[in-house]
């Protein structure tokens, strides 16, 4: 009888631990060590690319290498941390003509579903910018994962998407070549 109880207990522990093992790992985006970036580019007059980035953001994600659909991510961006290496332009970008950073200090992305494979994943979710929320898809892929030299565990991803400025109520006329912004995302997470 005692033996049987032990058997059940062992089976129970195995079941629980196997479920625990299969559940996605939780990560925090490494913005402390800044192994992550939110970059963007937009055409200038149709003649060249203007690039910039958001200096301040935070996020976390969970990633399940066995079942990608169990993964999810959410990111918050401080809109007033926009940086295109030009003080007057950045001031203009923070103003009501563009990001309206006083009224909407935060842009967010929260995933709804993640599909595909490590090599080509589609991260669907809600992106909120300038107070407007729209569904977007980020095309992403895994770069790698594993132990770091300091006792932690990391995984990293890269993704791109594009948004139409007008979709988010940003209608300042930059010319016909400059209605879309391309986002270039690099995310490294440290396992919690």
């Amino acid at each position, binding site marked *: 009888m005692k033996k049987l109880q032990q058997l059940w207990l062992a089976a129970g522990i195995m079941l629980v631990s196997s479920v625990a093992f299969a559940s996605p790992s939780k990560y925090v985006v490494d913005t402390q060590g800044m192994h992550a970036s939110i970059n963007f580019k937009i055409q200038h007059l149709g003649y060249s690319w203007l690039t910039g980035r958001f200096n301040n953001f935070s996020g976390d994600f969970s990633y399940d290498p066995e079942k990608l659909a169990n993964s999810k991510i959410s990111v918050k961006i401080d809109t007033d941390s926009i*940086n295109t*290496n030009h003080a007057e332009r950045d001031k203009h970008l923070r103003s009501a003509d563009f990001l309206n950073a006083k009224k909407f200090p935060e842009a967010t992305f929260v995933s709804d579903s993640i599909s595909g494979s490590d090599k080509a994943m589609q991260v669907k979710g809600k992106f909120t910018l300038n107070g407007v929320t729209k569904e977007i898809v980020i095309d992403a892929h895994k770069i790698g994962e594993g132990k770091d030299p300091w006792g932690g565990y990391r995984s990293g991803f890269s993704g791109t998407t594009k948004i139409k400025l007008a979709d988010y109520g940003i209608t300042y006329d930059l*010319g016909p070549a400059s209605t879309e912004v391309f986002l270039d995302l690099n995310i490294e997470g440290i396992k919690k």
Partner: protein
Amino acid sequence: MNLTNSARGYGWITIVMHWLVAVAVLGLFALGIWMVDLSYYSDWYHDAPFIHKSVGVLLVGLMLFRWVWTLVNPKPAPASVSSRAVAFLISAMHAVLYLLVFLLGVSGYLISTAEGHGISVFDWFTVPALIEPFEDQADLAGEIHELLAFVLIGLVVLHALAALKHHFINRDNTLKRMLKPSGK
């Protein structure tokens, strides 16, 4: 040629600087109000701020010289002043006008240098970004710059009304002596 001030009136250098500053301050105000709403495809989108900043830097330089000039020159007595309190108000007003021009210069400088880049003055020379940028610098400096500009223009209107009052009501030479040196 009366270049320097005397006890009775202003010299040409004071007079010319006064009107140069008057034109520059009014011009910068109008240009500033106009340029911030220019569309991206306006011919003036880049030139207007460039001129505004260049003239602004030169104006601060001129004001520094003008301030030194007031210190080393005699100050003509006010033409007609009703009381000591009024005399104090008048000199306080003049001091605030000077101060506001300097503060507008400083706040404008802080907008443009917020990311460590200098300000080109008509491509003749560049004023370097000297201070370590602080949090929210461009936005904060921008709001202060706008506010101070309106305060300055308000005081300039008062200043001009006071001159006209002296000219037409008190019928003294307060305005005239800022137009040409009065005889020594």
